[in-house]
């Protein structure tokens, strides 16, 4: 998959961003929290690549540091909703009796507008990364559940699952060794999409003021603060915006690439010839 240029570029971008943000303190020429009151809202220059914000801080540094929150939130939400969604999706898909109960709960969760939930949490507990993560996980967990459940419903009727039952294999093993590995591809793909959407969601929430507290730089917060200065210092909003777009786009393209890589499963392997008589009648019943 990484052979195609289309997938390589986004992948490299994300890796670079990740490395950059982790090691930021070591290589940034100017400390991002250093406030130079003489250099407030300066346009991009050789010293301040992205210009400065209203406190005179280096916007480039700020943008890079802000990536931490976005990547952290995105990753954590994706990971948590994937784990939780996979568990519920597997159970709902495999056990018909539990399906109805689980899906009604999940449908309820889906119906919840994530924004309102985030607002409520922030109002009750204060804005923090943890609360954002909780709210977003709550929103995306049902999405993953549905994806997993529908894949499980398909896979559980394929003959090798039946064969495993006839061989005496017990349910937990069937779920982990027979069903899970064969539904991995939609899970991974959906995971990357959730990653992307969480970043957007966090930015939106912070922009609206119900996200992470303003003292921590996030792309959303930067957009929020830059609103008033948009005519004077457009670079303040542009750069965080570009980074949001770039990150989300990269994740989406990677997600597509992953899906393509998993889907034509036998593509790239020995293509002996078209499958012999796949259309041959299945003499069932």
């Amino acid at each position: 998959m990484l052979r195609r240029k289309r997938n390589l570029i986004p992948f490299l971008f994300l890796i670079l961003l990740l490395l950059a943000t982790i090691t930021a303190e070591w290589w940034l020429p100017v400390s991002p929290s250093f406030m130079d009151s003489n250099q407030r809202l300066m346009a991009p220059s050789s010293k301040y690549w992205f210009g400065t914000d209203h406190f005179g801080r280096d916007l480039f540094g700020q943008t890079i540091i802000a990536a931490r929150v976005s990547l952290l939130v995105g990753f954590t939400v994706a990971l948590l909703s994937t784990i939780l969604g996979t568990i519920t999706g597997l159970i709902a898909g495999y056990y018909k009796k539990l399906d109805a109960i689980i899906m009604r709960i999940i449908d309820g969760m889906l119906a919840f507008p994530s924004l309102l939930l985030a607002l409520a949490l922030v109002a009750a507990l204060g804005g923090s990364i943890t609360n954002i993560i909780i709210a977003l996980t709550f929103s995306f967990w049902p999405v993953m559940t549905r994806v997993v459940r529908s894949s499980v419903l398909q896979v559980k009727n394929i003959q090798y699952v039946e064969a495993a039952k006839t061989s005496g294999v017990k349910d937990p093993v069937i779920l982990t060794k027979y069903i899970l590995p064969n539904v991995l591809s939609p899970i991974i793909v959906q995971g990357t999409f959730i990653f992307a959407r969480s970043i957007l969601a966090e930015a939106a929430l912070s922009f609206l003021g119900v996200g992470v507290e303003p003292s921590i730089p996030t792309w959303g917060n930067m957009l929020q603060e830059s609103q008033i200065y948009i005519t004077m210092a457009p670079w303040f909003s542009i750069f965080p915006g570009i980074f949001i777009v770039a990150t989300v786009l990269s994740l989406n393209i990677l997600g597509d690439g992953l899906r393509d890589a998993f889907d034509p499963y036998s593509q790239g392997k020995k293509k002996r010839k078209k499958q012999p008589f796949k259309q041959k009648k299945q003499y069932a019943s």
Partner: protein
Amino acid sequence: MSEPLLEIRDLNMHFPMKQGILQKTKNYIKAVNGVSFTLNKGETLGIVGESGCGKSTLARTIVGLLKPTSGDILFEGKSILQYNRKELHQLRRDIQMVYQDPYTSLNPRMKAGDIIAAPLKAYNQTNNLKNRVLELLELVGLKTEDYNKLPHQFSGGQRQRIGIARALALNPKLIVLDEPVSALDVSVQAQVINLLEDLQEELGLTYLFIAHDLSVIRHISDKVGVMYLGKMMEMSDSESLYKNPRHPYTNALLSAVPMPYPTKGKKRERIVLKGELPSPSNPPNGCVFHTRCPFATDFCKGNVPALDVVEENSSGQYVACFYPRENKQMEFPR
């Protein structure tokens, strides 16, 4: 051998058809509708029939994937429908299945060796696991290197071999084979058929072989049963059935099989069936075959023929027909 290995008594498998918002059961699909037979150790019973006759459903019920609506299944003289979960789990070791489609009957994410080992692991027979699997691989004609390969690296015939090895892993007494060669190329079919025959001899296996291909059934079976719409129409030893079919349906089937040599100018006696296959949710009254039988009379419309002995030879020739065909040799003009 005093008792048969497998005995089926008046087995019924009816699937409810649910309709409407309230999912009320309106009708039943009578997939298997009163089937009885016995199978002795070391024998191969071939069940043949066209689509919708219920042979696959019969196979799945015997293997335990479906619970029959009524009737009894006796394995080694004991009724297995009374077994609890634990006993059923143990029973699985003795009755295994080989599936039709080599492309969907193997987990694409598991290595061949693991697929074969799965039943052994399920029953905690993990002593010397790898050696046992390698033994099985060799038994079915695969190589040691194949242990670590994934299914998509094998051809159809090889995948079926893996499926067979998997079925043999627990040393079963009975193997049910559901169309094991239908999805294979002609040149590969012979390989797998020969393999199955060799294994039967070597390991003393008993086969229940389900297929729609009459020639394959002729070749491999000792006894043959012909099914139509969930009922057994005729059952006898292979030679008698093919040389001397008594039921009109069997005659029609055999006369419809195209012979692998030219018969231009030489007409074979063909029994043409009229009409269409009735729906299994609404089988005809009386003899289920009467709507298409060229010899049906009014009597056939109202009465159900039992599977009765028509000829007393070695294992008996049983026909479910009020007017079985005469004892006449089947002709294959050359």
